[in-house]
């Protein structure tokens, strides 16, 4: 056997022009977030509401148990169960905490460590890069919304012993998490791409979350019109829940589809700003 040739050896394989260059970004991003300090703590916090609702679904079928009676009374119908679960304040707040914890630095750290020079010296264009970053956040956000939703459906069937489930509600359970996750992901990534200072991005995400809600409530009490609720992120999300889960009756007197429009519109605007922002940084 000849001695292995010392020094630089080439690579015989073929560099195939793949269109899914976002996949490597996706897989490595998932691993990096999972390895972060406190990641398990945050994951635990986000799945906490799911546990509460799981118990409530069980207790609902066993009225003799006196547990969580307040919550159970509100879960009379399946629709109200999922509506309440997907729009409860604690879940939304914890999703925001996750975006602050893991999402804020996704692009800011690349800007700070000048990683874009490495990324874009590869045959990768902005869509791959942004697509990859989006997919990382979507993976976790869906993990905390869609997966618990489907589990609740499964457990509801098991506990109530009947496989009957309204297809419309099932469709809503599939659609709502995507709308919410796309919104949160575009919001976080857009802010993350604005500055290399991840600390500033984290503070701005939380500041916007609280500021807009306070502003909406202030405007509503002053001008006595519920349309101002459109300013508040949480209220918009609640209205989208109402629209999808209990046939559009809204908690305030303004049409709930308007909130859906606002959320989708904002998602588009944030993604556009993000797209422009990366183009400038790529050069």
């Amino acid at each position, binding site marked *: 056997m000849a001695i292995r040739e010392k020094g630089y050896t080439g*690579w015989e*394989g073929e560099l195939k022009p*793949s269109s899914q*260059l976002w996949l490597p970004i996706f897989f490595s991003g998932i691993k990096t977030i999972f390895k972060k300090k406190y990641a398990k703590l945050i994951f635990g916090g986000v799945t906490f509401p799911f546990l509460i609702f799981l118990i409530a679904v069980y207790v609902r079928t066993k009225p003799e148990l006196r547990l969580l009676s307040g919550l159970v009374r509100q879960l009379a119908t399946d629709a109200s169960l999922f509506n309440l679960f997907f729009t409860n304040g604690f879940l939304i707040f914890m999703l925001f905490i996750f975006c602050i914890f893991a999402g804020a630095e996704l692009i800011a750290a690349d800007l700070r*460590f000048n*990683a874009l020079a*490495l990324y874009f010296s590869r045959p990768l264009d902005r869509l791959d890069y942004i697509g990859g970053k989006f997919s990382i956040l979507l993976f976790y956000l869906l993990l905390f919304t869609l997966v618990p939703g489907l589990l609740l459906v499964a457990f509801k069937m098991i506990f109530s012993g009947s496989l009957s489930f309204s297809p419309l509600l099932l469709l809503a359970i599939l659609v709502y998490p995507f709308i919410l996750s796309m919104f949160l992901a575009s919001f976080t990534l857009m802010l993350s791409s604005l500055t290399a200072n991840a600390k500033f991005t984290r503070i701005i995400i939380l500041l916007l979350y609280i500021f807009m809600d306070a502003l909406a409530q202030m405007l509503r009490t002053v001008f006595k019109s519920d349309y101002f609720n459109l300013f508040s992120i949480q209220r918009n999300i609640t209205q989208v829940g109402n629209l999808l889960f209990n046939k559009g009756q809204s908690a305030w007197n303004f049409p709930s589809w308007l909130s859906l429009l606002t959320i989708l519109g904002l998602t588009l605007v944030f993604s556009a700003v993000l797209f422009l922002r990366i183009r400038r940084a790529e050069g």
Partner: protein
Amino acid sequence: MQNGTIVNLENIRFSYPNVQAIDDVSLTMENGIFGLLGPNGAGKTTLIKILLGFLAPQSGRGEVFGLTIGHQGHKGIRRHIGYMPESDCLIPGMDAVALTAYLGELSGMPHQEAIKRAHDVLYYVGLGEARYRQVETYSAGMKQRLKLAQALVHDPRLLLLDEPTSGMDPSGRKEILELIRDISAKGRMSIIISTHLLADIEYTCQHVIIMNQGRIITRAPIVSLSHERFNSFEVKLKGDAAEFLKQLRTKKCQVEEGEKNDFHILLPAIESSKLIFAIATRTGVQIRQLKKSQTTLEDAFLKAIGEADGD
């Protein structure tokens, strides 16, 4: 790749808002190792970015590997380029193997192949034992090696190295230069090295391109630049030089004190180095070093830049 031309640029012009960075550059490069030289802000990094397609030239056209530069062809071009940026850059939150494999995949390598190749190149650049450590904990020298590794992982056809040895200690620097020579010896790829260290270019490159203020001033094979100057010596002495220099001047030799505490002696045509030794023994001075003075790359560089600057 027709007849081996890697890069072909014709009257490329590019300017940042207030600085004319590249002013009518035309250049063709065949297979080989090219040194890119020039003072700070001469346009070297801008030229590299144009080759990579980061910047689109305002006028002129060019091809790399036969694919036109500018925003359409850049994907094909970048696939076969290994780029080692000048400034510190890394992707946070990963260890060296993960980072190198990740960038290999982004160049189009299958996942498993990228991981295998990552280990090979990391061993090759000398990061074998530190390859599982997080990259943020790497020292300046190790980050340079990592940058070289990520540029080699997909076995490119053109390697662009921007200040490859900056921040390396002497033994590290020698190793990197040996690696570059070894890579060029294998002949699998061409290399463009942009650096301030002339010794690095003299040691590794075949051709040198000197740029200043966005224009290419000279482009020549290295060997043609450093030719020996007839009958002119650089001498280092031990002992009292005054008498020795006086006698040399009486023999119509021109003597000046050099930069690195040595003396430049120009002998008249008829004399040979023997005269220096003769006078030295007469004046009790020891000749510790005698070298024919060569126009080194540094002199060629200073002459080229000096003229342009009117320095």
